[in-house]
């Protein structure tokens, strides 16, 4: 699969490393060149410096041939806009955005975007560890 990841933080880098190791073609975008230090030494994918909400940057990252697009920067709004560009402009088949704010996550899920909300997910995981004993 061709995968574009926007945001090379802990989650983005881990995703990129894992996908790369399992043989997928990965391209990862981040504004800060220093963010790419989180990638493993033998990462064989492409790194692109720029913002994930600029169509030209996304094209340089190969979004036109992408099968999957994942937006995991530290900004909810950046992830939301990047995901909508991937979905509406480039028709990427699988698009996922991380959104921390549960209300915003709910809004965009209803609008047809595949969303993940760490806030509610982690809170419910913690709840289940408390009440599972």
């Amino acid at each position, binding site marked *: 699969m061709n995968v574009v990841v926007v945001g090379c933080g802990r989650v983005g880098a881990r995703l990129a490393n894992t996908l790369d190791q399992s043989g997928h073609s990965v391209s990862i975008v981040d504004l800060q060149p220093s963010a790419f230090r989180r990638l493993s030494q033998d990462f064989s994918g492409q790194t692109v410096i720029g913002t994930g*909400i*600029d169509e030209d940057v996304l094209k340089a990252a190969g979004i036109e041939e992408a099968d999957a697009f994942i937006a995991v920067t530290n900004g*909810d*709004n950046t992830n*939301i*806009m990047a995901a909508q560009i991937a979905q*509406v402009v480039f028709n990427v088949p699988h698009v996922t955005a991380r959104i921390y704010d549960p209300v915003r996550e709910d*809004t965009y899920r209803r609008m047809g975007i595949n969303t993940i909300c760490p806030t509610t997910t982690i809170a419910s995981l913690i709840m289940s560890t408390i009440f599972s004993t």
Partner: protein
Amino acid sequence: MYLIVVGGGKVGYYLTKTLVNEGYEVLLIEKNQSKVDTYTERFGAIVMNGDGAEAATLAAAGAGRADVVVAVTGDDEDNLVICQMAKQRFHVKRTIARVNNPKNEELFRKLGIDVTVNHTNVILSLIEQQIPDRHFVHLLALKHAELEVVEASVSPDSPIAGQAVNDIRFPPETNIIALLRHGELIIPSGQTRVEAGDDVIAVTRLRSEAALRQLIVNE
């Protein structure tokens, strides 16, 4: 009419100030508390501290009864989400977003924003109007209607110089709406002759623009 302005930079500040002077009911939402304090001293209690992309902030601002939400922060992604949240959760009828990257104008419209304002394009078109060698200038574009208003100067070797409006074979869905001759405005009839040196103001469909340019400027 109740308007909510999000983003207290220079654009948001002067917009709020002007709207207040015009007598509108306005609320300005700004993230930075020290700016909120300064603006409150100037405007009174119509400035609110908060993140305009958060539903709780919009709810507290009374977005449910707002006629217009205007997002004018310096970040396109924030302006997009502010407008979409206002529309989706509070059913605000009209949303206006400031767009910093000109390429985002079309995207924002596709994503349901009613009006976009792009200062880069505004300044560009003002510059285009001032450059003497430009023979064909965009004055106004209504992209919803695919309609454009353009201004073109008629050179002596232009194919339409000396022709009556009725005899000019315009591309489809195109009309001359005004002529400027030595600074005088002429609203043309069919018999009016276009002269070399005239500035022609025409309305056209986007897809006929190239043919119109060819006809007048003969580039």
